[in-house]
Structures are given as C-alpha cells and as structure tokens.
C-alpha cells in the first residue's frame, strides 16, 4: 500500500465519520461544525487529486462562507432539545424502512453503471488553475455563464423575500 493510498483511506474514513457525526449529533451547532470538518475532508481529497484550486475554493466558499451563514442562523434560532419536534416510534420506523429501501434501489440501479475510467488516463494537471480556467472559459463557457445567471436570479429572489413590505408598520 503506497503513501497515496494510506492518505486516501485516512481521508475517506475521516470524511465518512465526520459526515455521520453530522447526522447523529443532537446539537445542531455541533452538526454544522462536523459538516465543516467534512468539507475539510473533501478538500483533502481534492488536494490528493492534485486539484489545489478546487480544494482552496471549496474551503473558501463552503467552509468560509456558506457554513458561517448556517452557523449564524442556527445560533440565532437557538434550537435545543425542547424545541425539537418529536416523532412517534411508528413514524421513525417508517422513515428507517423508507430510507433503507431508497438506498437499496439506488445501489441496485447504479451498480451496473459503475465502470469508472482508469485514473491515470486523465491529465493529472486538470485541477490546477491554468487548465481549469482554459476549459471553463472555452469548452464550458455557456454552462458557466448560465450558472452565474442562476446565482444572480437566486440573489434577486433572496433580496425580494428579505425585503420589508412597504405597508408593514416599522416597529423599530
């Protein structure tokens, strides 16, 4: 087992453990913090694939911005055990069976399609800034621009929802 594989298994185990802790934590703030660590695990995978740019952007965007907003909202909501909606045992059992069958179906349907290309056929420099930028601005320029328009639309929507209504009395 080479060093690369050891690093991969370590990172994979780390990511999976942290991701499951996100689900199993009782406290939502802890969940978010574990989610941040999961993000770091994924960024580590990017690094081991020689995609430094993706790794750093992943950290900046997800861990540095989106997760801060998550944490922000959850801290403000002050969720705790008392305010958590409790489901009855039957509901929980039904959810477990439903989720389990979904997983089984997904595994069964994807099992035949998993024939990944061998890793070293791909140019290992594809994740560096230069090749990535070239591909993004030549081959994939239309999807790239469309996704930015999508973000803009989401932004406008968020502003619209967040806007105070004109006739609403100002309490401040």
């Amino acid at each position, binding site marked *: 087992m080479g060093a690369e594989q050891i690093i991969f298994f370590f990172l994979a185990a780390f990511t999976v453990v942290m991701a499951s802790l996100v689900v199993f934590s009782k406290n939502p*703030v802890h969940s978010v*913090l574990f989610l*941040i660590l999961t993000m770091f695990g994924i960024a580590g995978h990017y690094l081991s694939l020689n995609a*430094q*740019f993706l790794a*750093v*952007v992943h*950290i*900046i965007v997800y*861990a*540095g*911005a989106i997760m*801060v*907003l998550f*944490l*922000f909202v959850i*801290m*403000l909501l002050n969720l705790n055990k008392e305010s958590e909606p409790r489901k009855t045992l039957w509901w929980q059992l039904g959810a477990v069976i439903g989720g389990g069958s979904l997983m089984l179906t997904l595994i069964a349907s994807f099992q035949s399609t998993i024939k990944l290309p061998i890793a070293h056929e791909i140019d290992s420099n594809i994740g*560096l*800034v230069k090749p990535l930028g070239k591909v993004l601005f030549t081959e994939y320029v239309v999807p790239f621009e469309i996704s930015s328009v999508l973000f803009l639309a989401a932004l406008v929507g968020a502003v619209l929802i967040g806007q105070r209504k004109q006739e609403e009395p100002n309490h401040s």
Partner: protein
Amino acid sequence: MDFIIEKSVLIVSVFGITLVMAMYSTWLERKFAAFLQDRLGPNRAGIFGLLQPFADAGKMFFKEEFIPNHSEKFLFIAGPGIAMFTACMTSAVIPWGPDFEAFGRTISLQISDINIGILYIMGFLSLGVYGIMIGGWASNNKYSLFSAIRASSQMISYELAMGIIIITIVMMTGSLSLRNIVQEQSGALYNITALKGLNWNIFYQPLAFIIFMTCALAECNRAPFDLAECETELIGGYHTEYSSMKLGFYLFAEYINMFISSTVIATIFFGGYNFPGMQLIENSALLTVMCVAVLFLKIIFFIMLFMWIRWTLPRFRYDQLMHLGWKSLIPLAIINMLITGAVILAT
C-alpha cells in the same frame, strides 16, 4: 534531508518572528496610543517599558482560569485555539525575501510556493471567523453571542470586497502565486529605467489599496470596525467570559492578524521585498538581508498605520459599517475591476 532541515528552520523562525512581532505590537500600540494622547505609556518594566509584553504574558498565564458552568466546555476551550491557529497559518505562503545561495544550494525564503498562494490566504482569513463564532456561542452568554454574530456578518461582508480587489491584482499579474506577484513588482515603474524596483501595484491601483486597507481593518476587527468588542454595548464582546491565557490568545490572535494583514498589504501592493536600487547590490547575501529588512520596514509602517487609524477614528455604528461595506466598497471594487479589465484588454 537537507530540504526538511531547511524548511523546519524556516518554519520555526517565521513562527517565532510572528509571535515576537505580535508581542511587540502590543507594546507599540500602547506607546503609540500614549504618544497620540500626550502621555507616557508603559515605562516601568525595562527601558522604555520594553519588557512590558513579557510582564503581560506572565500575568496572563498566572491569572485564574475560569470556565462558566453553562458553557459548552470543549468548544469554549477550542475557540481561542482556532483563532490562534488560523492566525498563525497564513504566514506560510509569504515570500520573505529573494532566493540566495548558501551551503552550495539555493535557499528560498518562502515556506511553500503553492501556485494558489493568495487564495490560501483568503481561505484562512475566511476561516478566522470560526474562532470568534465558536468562542462566542460556547460561552452561553447573550452578549458574546451578539458579538460573535456581528463579527461573522462583518467579516463575510468585507471579505467580498477584499476578494474582488484580489481578483483585480491577479488579473494584472496573471498569477495566483504570491512569489510571482512580488517578482512582477520588481520591474521599472511606468517603464522609466530610473524607477527600477518601484513597479509596485499601489501606483497602478491606488483605489484598490484604499479598499483593501479598509477591508483589512474590518477583517482584523480593529477600530473603527471593532463592533465585535464594542464595550459600551456588549460588555467585552465575544471574549466576555474568557479569562487567563484563553483571553490572551484571543487578544494575541488579533495582533498576529494585524501583522499578517500588514504583510499581505506590503506584499501585494508595496512590492514585497523589492526596493529601488536593489539591482545595484551585487552581494547575494547582503541583498537578501536588505530585502528582508525592507519588507519588515514596510510591515512595521503598516502596523503603525493600523494603530494610527485606531487611535484617530471613532467607532462606526453597525448599520454604517454594513452600508459602507455593501453599498460603497463592493460597488467601488467592482468598478475598479471592470476598469482594470478594460485597460488590460486595450493594451
């Protein structure tokens, strides 16, 4: 093996220098404040009060350690650690000086020249908020929580303008590596040969520098943007519940951040270790020493600028802070970026 020894020495010395600079920034801050307010400042511990930082550190270490009962214990302890860690990590990609020959090999004064250096710094800057947020939340104190939330929204808002400025600089240089950004600035300013070594970005992007400086102040939670530790509204801010060296870590992390911010400003706008007349020095070792000295002079200048601003301007109101960030700095930064793009396209 040589490589590991070389890098270890470099890492330890950069770490040591960072801590010493941060320690003496506290001394300088007090002396500077005293100067501006026409008083003496610390003058009992050692000559000119130079031993004051050691006295402070000793006091911090031996004070009673207090952890509130209702706090989230692990996160309460982790908070200052995270703040300190993220503050110290940024120095890894700064080029402290040019390469030089010694012991028969080329030695680089940069811990790691990763090709995305400037994004690495942005990444750790954006993580810096977690120390404050986690500490503020784990204290289980509403003032700490308010402060943590203020700090995080402030930092996210100002990171945007900062990121756009960095894009502008990257557009001019064509590289994300800090080393390339510094080397780019070693040429002749406006192609005048007499101004060689003065090809600094500040002469091309003065507006970008002002925006970046403002954002750096906000990112460091320094006055006039220290809304997170606004005593009149929030007691002590996010570190209200902290005592002993944990409080010390928070305060110290702020000074390390200030040092790193000054370094980044000096590196990307003021030519890093470049100075006019550096091509006249033939001796490689002397050149390296002078380059490092020049870089540190620039850094100290910016640290003093930070302090000067702190002791001159009163604190902003929170809505003013947000208006400044979102309605002035970000549009200005975008216009600046568009103009830069147009100029690059035209030339």
